[in-house]
């Protein structure tokens, strides 16, 4: 059976595990807010602690038929299907940025409905399929 040596080693092991767990719980409760990479438009609407004129990252879907473009800036609506946020951005957008696709915008909040973006990142979902397949799915949906 287990010898004395192994028992001492096991107790050393368990103490390390306990210390690590304590650390982790401590870290988790301190970082809870920072772990989230972005907030959703409705979170911004609800949360009163978010100050205007501060840097913030917001993620959501680009609303259908909402992209307006002129030679200076691009303007679109970011939505989480509950609340909407108007985003203004001047610069190049990533390839995958389009209507009804996810996007993360980084910028300054002007008021709770208006954001001036410094950077736009496109977010894509976990579905991968060939174009023919997508066509079939679209036709089926109609």
């Amino acid at each position, binding site marked *: 059976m287990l010898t004395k040596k*192994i028992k001492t*080693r*096991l107790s*050393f*092991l368990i103490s*390390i*595990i306990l210390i*690590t767990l304590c650390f*982790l719980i401590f870290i988790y409760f301190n970082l809870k807010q920072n*772990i*989230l*990479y*972005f*907030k*959703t438009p409705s979170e911004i609407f609800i949360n009163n602690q978010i100050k205007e004129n501060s840097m913030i990252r917001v*993620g959501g879907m680009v609303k259908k038929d909402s992209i307006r473009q002129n030679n200076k800036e691009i303007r679109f609506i970011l939505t989480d299907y509950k609340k909407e946020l108007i985003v203004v951005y001047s610069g190049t*957008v*990533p*390839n*995958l*940025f389009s209507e009804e*696709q996810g996007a*993360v915008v980084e910028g300054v909040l002007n008021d709770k409905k208006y954001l001036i973006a410094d*950077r*736009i*990142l*496109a*977010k*894509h*979902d*976990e*579905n*991968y*399929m*060939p*174009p*023919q*397949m*997508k066509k079939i799915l679209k036709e089926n949906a109609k």
Partner: protein
Amino acid sequence: MDLFSFGNVIVYVNKLIKFINSIFFVILIIGLSFALIFSPVDYLQGDTVRIMYVHVPSAWIGISIFSLIAISSILNFVFKIKNLFLIVKSLAPIGLLFTCLSIVTGSLWGKPTWGTWWAWDARLTSMFMLMVFYILFIFSFKYFKNKEYLPKILTALSILGIINIPIIKYSVEWWSTLHQPASIKFTGTSSIHSSMLIPLFLMLLALLLYCALIFLMKYKTEIIKIKKQNIKRL
């Protein structure tokens, strides 16, 4: 226990290396040609999706090798099994290689799709932590030669590191991240079309064989090193 003496192990290892050598290139060529030529493009990303065939398997391998070496070094610490120690020592650099590979390919993939090389979101940060743990593992092999301390340090590292593994796995579900959720799940259907799934698993097989090849070579070298030390002592 003559079967597991180091002399016998070397014979098996040599046989295995020969066998893997004979099939590795065939499977690699089949996998690569499926991944780069025969598989269809993605409806959204086009040809960029082909990075997945290296990125996803190498991330899986990086994560699973870390779990393996963490569990082995804890077992080695408790029961002092010399063989496990050698396995850990020869597996750690391979895991680091594949973790770095997945981070590099991921950042190459991120630039055209997301529009950035790197973002400090939960998935990417936890993967970065995995790389740091691998580097700490390898450094502790290099700098702590003492037989008393090394297993203790390795155990502490592996306990800290193994907590990171579920965090990597579930980071995309627990928190909002730039990285998309998992396409292939343990249960339920996968959201990758089968014409893309086959090359993915072929590439996984090819990379796993490569891992096994490098591991066996390194393991053999470690055994030979120990044999040499014993000869010197006599």
